[in-house]
């Protein structure tokens, strides 16, 4: 769907120029004076109420048309704003931004992102040694910023009976939807989909993050970004986990497996191993601390609070 949008947008821009020379884009100074083709960093997904765009801080303000400017391309450095009752939904890079009524102009800027090889190197070198922000996410698996294994991926979220039916979708690094399932009961809190796994299998060795989006009937969306474990890493991981399996189902086995899983970013699985260890030794303070850490990384703030309250 988004791929189509990417193809349609330049077409729409050209069409706009032909039909109505006085339209928004003709007032875009950079298009008229600059002979090099503009670089779009995103587009407008939705416009409600009065919304404005200007090409630069001192540029001319233009009112956006909810119909004709839908899927309008956004350039780096442009500014947008919403008037009273206005709403804009923008897609910039792989980020969705909702702009509501405000006096301030929102600057369109494509956030730089690190090369995947550099990110991987940092991840295997070390980790954050300080306080991080807590991303409130109703999605537990895959947790934000984690790594997931294709073959065993189960989608988990905080179940909520009042949510009603939800739809789940997976998008690749460019925002293109690669899988969707509608009509899932939000109260279930989990979904294991072979079709989703099949869709993800093609991206196993592709760099870049994917996103899982859960949208409820009120069109409220929760989204997490995650990576997939590559085939090569999966083999290495299985080998390392296999060494711990040989030792039997002991506390050491669970802790060993958990530490390996944390290293690979499989936080939910690591938390599960630590929890199994806790059932064998609930008095161990160090084990409890490790479990808190893993559950925190897995985004399970409810369980983190429970464990933190224990004496």
């Amino acid at each position: 769907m988004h791929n189509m949008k990417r193809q349609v947008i330049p077409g729409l821009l050209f069409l706009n120029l032909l039909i109505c020379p006085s339209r928004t884009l003709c007032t875009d100074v950079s298009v008229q004076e600059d002979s090099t083709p503009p670089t779009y960093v995103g587009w407008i997904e939705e416009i409600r109420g009065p919304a404005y765009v200007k090409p630069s801080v001192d540029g001319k303000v233009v009112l956006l048309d909810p119909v004709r400017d839908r899927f309008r391309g956004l350039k780096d450095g442009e500014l947008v704003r919403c008037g009273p009752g206005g709403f804009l939904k923008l897609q910039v890079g792989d980020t969705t931004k909702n702009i509501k009524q405000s006096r301030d102009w929102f600057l369109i800027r494509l956030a730089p992102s690190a090369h995947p090889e550099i990110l991987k190197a940092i991840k295997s070198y070390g980790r954050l040694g300080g306080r991080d922000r807590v991303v409130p996410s109703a999605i537990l698996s895959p947790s934000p910023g984690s790594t997931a294994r294709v073959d065993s991926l189960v989608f988990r979220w905080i179940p909520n009976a009042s949510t009603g039916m939800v739809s789940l979708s997976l998008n690749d690094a460019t925002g293109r939807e690669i899988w969707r399932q509608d009509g899932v009961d939000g109260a279930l809190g989990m979904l294991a989909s072979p079709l989703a796994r099949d869709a993800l299998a093609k991206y196993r060795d592709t760099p870049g993050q994917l996103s899982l989006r859960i949208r409820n009937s009120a069109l409220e969306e929760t989204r997490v970004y995650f990576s997939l474990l590559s085939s090569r890493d999966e083999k290495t991981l299985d080998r390392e986990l296999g060494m711990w399996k040989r030792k039997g189902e002991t506390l050491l086995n669970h802790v060993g497996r958990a530490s390996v899983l944390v290293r690979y970013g499989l936080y939910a699985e690591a938390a599960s191993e630590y929890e199994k260890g806790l059932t064998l030794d609930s008095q161990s303070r160090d084990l409890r601390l490790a479990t808190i850490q893993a559950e925190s990384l897995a985004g399970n703030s409810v369980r983190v609070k429970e464990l933190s309250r224990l004496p």
Partner: protein
Amino acid sequence: MKRSLGNKKKRKAARPTDVSSTVERPRNARATGTIILHIFWGLVVTFILLLTKEWLEVTPIGERLKSNTYDLLQERLSSAINNEDLPVVVVDISESDALKQKASDGGDAVTPREPLIKLITAIAKQKPRAIGVDVDFSPEQGRYLTRTDPEFFAACLRLRDVTNVPIFLGIFRSQTLPPDTWLGSRDYEPLAASIVVPNDFKKMAQWMQVYGDTPRKVPTLSAALADAFYKSDWQPPRLLRWVLVSTEEKKLAPRIKVAEFLIDYSPLDALDKETMRLKALVKQPEVASELREELTDKIVLIGGATLGKESDTFVAPNRSSPIPGVYVHACAAYTLIKGPLYEWKPTIRLTLDILLSAIVFGIVIAVTEYYRLRTDRIVATRRLGVAVALSIACVLVVVGVGLVPRTRIMWDDFLLVIVVVLVHPSVEDGAGKLWAWLRNGWRLAWRKLVFSDKKGNVK
């Protein structure tokens, strides 16, 4: 001394076929040939033992031994620390309600900026050497975590300019991006310092360099803080400087490089005590003036330091419990200020291993040759070898462990070296006997296998 002809046959019969045996050697063995043979065998055994040591080092047993040795060395460093002279303190914000992570306008739960700037301001007024905040302030996908972040960063810059106290704010997510994105703007770049902690708990990064369109080098928090402090000018003796290394650069990937140094964890207990004394400061920053003695001329690290309240915990040598990340940064800053820890360069490490083994058989050969022309008595080479090995082992223990606070050399495989030195005489002896058997004994063994004891008729 004249040798009698009558003993010639005895000497011939007793000509040694092994080179390091405890049996008697004839006095008139060809001197040069014997020495060369001894040296050859000594080197062969040294080579075999060193290969075994290299293999052992990568096994779980060897790694465990090195880890325990490292703990022992850290323990020695801790015993020599002067608690009164601590240049670093940690201010713990874990138990402060005001500084607990709360939902922000950006959606994420972050450490509130307003009480944080109040705390930093109160501390800065007491003239510390520098202040570091162990929190990740990196923008997320180009957007500030809270709308007030630019104000907060600007306030830190103003405070720095007014009080002349350097202030550093932690980054992690944005550390590999261009400098103008570390804290969202080039203006705030001087505040940024990486709070990465390597998986190898013995080391800390001093800086990280990413190559690309805009090559950038980001300092770590401990290095940035230590730079603001007058550092010790302690250095190892001139003779040793060319064989030791304190900072090592390595490539993490083709486009990213780090410089690492060993962390001295000896001040951990002292840091913990000081953190307890500063608890009141977090709840009431106004009491900072009463804690002037604890803050003035010190490096002050602000972060979550209560185990169980923070999710960033790390293993430290000689500790039964993990420690929060802020203490790792504090110990790293302490190390850079007080004096770095050293390691032998890899080639020097190997040379030492060979040299120590060579000393064992070298002394045995020298003593044997010295007495060969002076007396009829036979040198007990094996006993002598064991005695020399034990002496070297004692010296290694004294140098490797006892003098660590002075030398600051972290020689974590010296126990394995001691094992190599101690077994050298026995292995050399065994190798000699094996060689003797291979040369002559196999014929006997073959005959015994092939022929029966009965004698047959010759036709």
